[in-house]
């Protein structure tokens, strides 16, 4: 759950920086800069060529951060699948009981998917809160606001970004739960009852 929350927080942070950066590129520096905040570095970037190189560097950095972010989602999915597999073995008898009282294979599988989605939803809430604090408070305070950082535009977290993080989380959760759910639903009730 912690790894999933970290993934969400990281994704929100990277995407928020990326969105801020794209506005920086499209809109130029002026709207974001405090009137008297030009450092020597910023003055140098008024040269269009130097500015292009600088934006390219930032874009590459953000792209790599995206790759790391997506890779960590895959790692989180593996973690969830592992937790569910362990849980399936621990709950073997419970699965046997459910099958004995007339719960179908599909319904047993559905229980495992719901467990995973619940886990993912909790992780999402924690991750989003952490991501918002990281991007809109800590990042903006440390790297923007004219404190000499390398970024000129503040991070931006529109609602659609949070929504897309939710969609990714739900997809990752369902994908991670698929195999454990399939294994749980295929369990022979008599063998499961024996534990």
């Amino acid at each position, binding site marked *: 759950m912690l790894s999933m929350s970290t993934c969400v927080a990281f994704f929100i942070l990277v995407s928020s920086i990326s969105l801020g950066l794209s506005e920086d590129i499209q809109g130029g520096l002026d709207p974001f800069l405090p009137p008297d905040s030009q450092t020597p570095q910023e003055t140098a970037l008024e040269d269009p060529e130097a500015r292009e190189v600088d934006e390219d560097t930032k874009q590459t950095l953000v792209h790599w951060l995206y790759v790391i972010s997506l890779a960590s989602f895959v790692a989180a999915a593996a973690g969830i699948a592992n937790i569910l597999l362990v849980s399936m073995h621990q709950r073997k008898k*419970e699965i046997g009981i459910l099958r004995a009282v007339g719960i179908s294979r599909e319904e047993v599988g559905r229980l495992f998917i719901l467990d995973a989605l619940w886990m993912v939803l909790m992780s999402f809430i924690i991750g989003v809160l952490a991501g918002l604090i990281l991007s809109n408070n800590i990042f903006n305070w440390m790297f923007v606001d004219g404190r000499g950082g390398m970024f000129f535009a503040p991070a931006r977290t529109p609602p659609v970004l949070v929504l897309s993080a939710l969609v990714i989380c739900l997809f990752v959760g369902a994908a991670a739960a698929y195999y454990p759910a399939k294994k749980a639903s295929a369990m022979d009730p*008599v063998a499961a009852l024996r534990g």
Partner: protein
Amino acid sequence: MIDVSRTYDMGTSTVMALDGINLSVSRGEFLAVVGPSGSGKSTLLNLIGGLDRPSEGRVRVLGSDLSNLSEEEMTRFRRENVGMVFQFFHLIPHLNALDNIMISRMFEADCSVERALRLLDQLGLKDRMSHLPGELSGGEQQRVSLARALFNEPDILLADEPTGNVDTKMGSSIVKLLKDQKKWGRTIILVSHDMNVAREADRIVELKDGRVVPG
């Protein structure tokens, strides 16, 4: 049951749990199956209850040939027609007594809480409905298990050593509760190795080495 055999593969060897069983039980009958450990009693119950399928032969219950039912039909058969009581209660530890009773209908919107409460009341457990299994005595857990078995108003009640894990007094009370179900026309099949318990039944069948001992 007609010429029913059940074998299990145990690595390189094969274990014959039931060997050519022929058995008929009438509707509303209370049958006790006795025999030593490993005689095939639980396997017999699992076959009648639709939890397992025979390796050979046919099992016909309430007009359905269980050998021919699909997995889905078998699940529905269990849910609608069979109630099972186990020696070790087999209650879900993180659900309270009330939720354990209604577990077979957990995916249904019209799950009758009133019926579950009525059962708890009849079995003297109304004040224990919000307790977890770990907070209940062995006898109380077995009564919750019986209430769960009765929740779907099944035609057949299968009890696998229901008194095996409770004291003698509670055991007699559980057998009496099972026997009471006859008045609702339910067929009761009880497995036990305790002859005092078995004597409460209408008929006793003895199993030995997977076969019915001619009596």
